[in-house]
């Protein structure tokens, strides 16, 4: 077990290292750099001024040196300076994390709260009208771009309540904040719930085919006991894995949703930083996202082993 965990951990580090090289190189392939942007924002084309800025930012140094500077800094916990704001990158990233984290967790809660029950009901009533209806609803959820759903929700709010649920100031209390974030979280979560629902359903169907379900029935267990006591318990194991995949899926959804609802989180910040070629921000944020995805998958793996007695009790 520890051997396995150690191996997984080593692979994780390897993956992150590879990611760091990939993102570093890809960002430098982008035509135009921050110096262009800084010069452009002032509407001037003097190549001397551009060169001066590049020198100041160290963009004229060899790529290896730039990479080493970034990675060695990262190891020390120094994320470098954001080009655009000229502040330490960490100060730009950290304050934006909580709201995105809250949003992601809320969205995950929504997707599980909607997805798991629907998936179970759909599986239990497989091939009935109810099942078809739920599958069609979930599939349409999966088919709608979340930014569009977000726009529709915004329009509905404005049209019906004359109030626009955007995050334009820090809400007064945590509850007010959750209330405000619940709307975009629902939009993201609804889409993800479709995935959870489909996977719960197929997992549940798989479990319902198992011998031990027949055993439970042969004991005289009621449908309720069979479905919720025997089957769900087993079906939820793969659903835990799904939540790992979800975490990655959600981050993608947050990028557009934060934009639509004007939420000052890291996901929207990433798009902005990509647009302005703010390498220190993009590099560190992408690494952070990769780190989250890899770590969540790692945690999911561990959780899986904790939840499944077959693995947990292995010596």
């Amino acid at each position: 077990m520890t051997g396995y965990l150690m191996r997984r951990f080593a692979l994780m580090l390897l993956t992150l290292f590879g990611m760091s090289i990939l993102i570093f190189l890809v960002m430098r392939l982008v035509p135009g750099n921050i110096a262009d942007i800084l010069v452009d924002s002032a509407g001037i084309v003097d190549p001397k001024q551009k060169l001066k800025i590049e020198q100041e930012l160290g963009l004229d140094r060899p790529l290896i040196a730039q990479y080493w500077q970034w990675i060695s800094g990262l190891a020390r916990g120094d994320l470098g300076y954001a080009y655009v704001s000229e502040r330490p990158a960490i100060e730009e990233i950290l304050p934006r994390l909580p709201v995105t984290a809250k949003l992601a967790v809320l969205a995950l809660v929504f997707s599980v709260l909607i997805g798991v029950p629907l998936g179970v009901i759909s599986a239990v009533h497989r091939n009935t009208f109810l099942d078809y209806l739920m599958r069609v609803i979930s599939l349409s959820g999966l088919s709608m771009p979340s930014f569009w759903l977000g726009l529709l929700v915004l329009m509905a709010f404005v049209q019906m309540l004359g109030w626009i649920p955007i995050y334009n100031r820090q809400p007064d209390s945590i509850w007010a904040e959750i209330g405000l974030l619940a709307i975009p979280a629902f939009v993201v979560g609804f889409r993800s719930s479709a995935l959870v629902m489909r996977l719960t359903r197929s997992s549940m169907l798989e479990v319902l085919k198992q011998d031990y379900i027949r055993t439970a029935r042969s004991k005289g267990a009621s449908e309720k006991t069979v479905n919720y006591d025997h089957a769900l318990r087993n079906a939820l194991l793969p659903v835990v894995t799904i939540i790992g995949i979800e975490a990655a899926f959600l981050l993608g959804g947050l990028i557009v949703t934060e934009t639509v609802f004007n939420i000052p989180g890291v996901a929207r910040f990433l798009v902005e930083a990509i647009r302005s070629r703010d390498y220190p921000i993009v590099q560190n944020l992408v690494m952070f996202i990769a780190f989250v995805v890899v770590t969540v998958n790692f945690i999911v793996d561990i959780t899986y082993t904790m939840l499944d007695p077959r693995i947990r009790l292995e010596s």
Partner: protein
Amino acid sequence: MRVRRCLGWAGNVSVMLGAAIMAMASVPAEAQKRGGILRMYHNDNPPSASLLEESTVSATGPFMAVFNNLVMFDQLKPEESPDTIVPDLAESWAWAPTGTKLTFKLRQGVKWHDGKPFTAKDVQCTWHMLIGKGDVGDFRKNPRKVWYENLSEVTISGDYEATFHLKAPQPALIMLLASGFSAVYPCHVPQQVMRTKPVGTGPFKFVEYKRGESITLSRNGDYFKAGKPYLDGITFKVIDNRSTRLLAFATGEFDLTYPSDVTVPLMKDMKAQAPTATCVLNASGVSANLIVNREKPPFDNPDIRKAMSLAFDRNEFNTILSEGKATYGGAMLPRPAGQWGMPEEVISTLPGYSADVKGRLREAQAIMEKLGYSAAKPIRMKLPTRNLPTYRDPAVILLDQLKKIYIEAELEIVDTPQWYAKVARKDYTIGFNLTGVSVDDPDANLVENYSCKSERNYTHYCNADVDRLLATQSREADREKRRKLVWDIERILVEDAARPMITHGVSGNCWHAHVKGYTAHTNSIYNNTRFEDTWLDK
């Protein structure tokens, strides 16, 4: 004829409307109330807080209130002109009889936000940095360097007198110094700090700037203008989506829209949504124009350039983008909002400005057909423009119009970071462009965009005649004589198709009834956000 009538009407109505309301808003009889936070939104992230390094309204909007100029345009008077220039850090100013020395008497006892005293040295430092005299430190960008092409040095006499020495007389220098961008910087603060946590003498102190989120300013208790400012602070919340932010304004989340943020088509909706709010429409100082590469085929051919000039249907642009409220003219802001615009009878004689749009189009088509082009055999090319909606939308209309003269262009959306580099490489045939002008004066506008030496003349248009005329008009003290010279320059620019002008835009600004002491200016959006007179009637 239709064009001209439309033009005059549009200009008059918008400006008069604006002026009338402004006059009401600035009635001084009311007693100002102190306190309250002015809640604004921002439509963009200012590239930095350093006004001297930036050239967009996204920087002046929030940061002009942090600084003071030597002189400024009266914040409460809608029209900016030499007559509305008032003292700021300078108590008074005087020209030497030669017209080459301008001496400012400075206020005493003024303190920077960090507590250090303001002296004439700071004035000297600021302008020496702008003309590249001595060590400029990490001053990165200098977009208005050409404004001070004529400035040889700034000398000081004691702590409270500074003299600007010019190579040649330039009466309009005082106009340039009144621009919102012409802030006085402290000597003792490095430029990196000025970009991130600016230190000024202005009515509001910089508190913080969270990119993509907010900008916060707080009242400067030590402000040298007694009793001012009235507000406790100003907040700007960054909201990208225009619908969202305008709705938020309408629902009372904000007191004031961002300068020039309300487009003409949205004005109606704003009035419906927020009927008690005051909304005015003014010239935005931004012109839609084309940059033409006169070295690259097919536009190296003057005939094709002429056909293109003839083919413009300015009314269509105007109707779609501004519901007919935009104005037409040369490079300078057209009358009546503009001080330097050509009279209508002059404009209508310019190639491509006659009211007979259909006739012009037929003429243009005939030229193209003579050159062997037709709908079946069009010129195919790319038309680059910046990846911003304000650029894209009109560019799409342009594509459609070019199609009528057998030019099938495909829009090439260029990301902001590559735009000027591309233009500098001359990697385009024609491109769609917007030019913003902060001060309605030829020394700012024409010199900046058309003189051979200018940093911002990115098309590298260079005409010795134009440069000579530019220098002459700059020295001319008589405004009427200067105007004639300017018109001559304008005609050359139009005939050269230097940057064919399509329209001069208008944009709106709204504020709720409780906002007092704020005036939208009729001929610029860059110079009226000091907010030292603004107060909330709540």
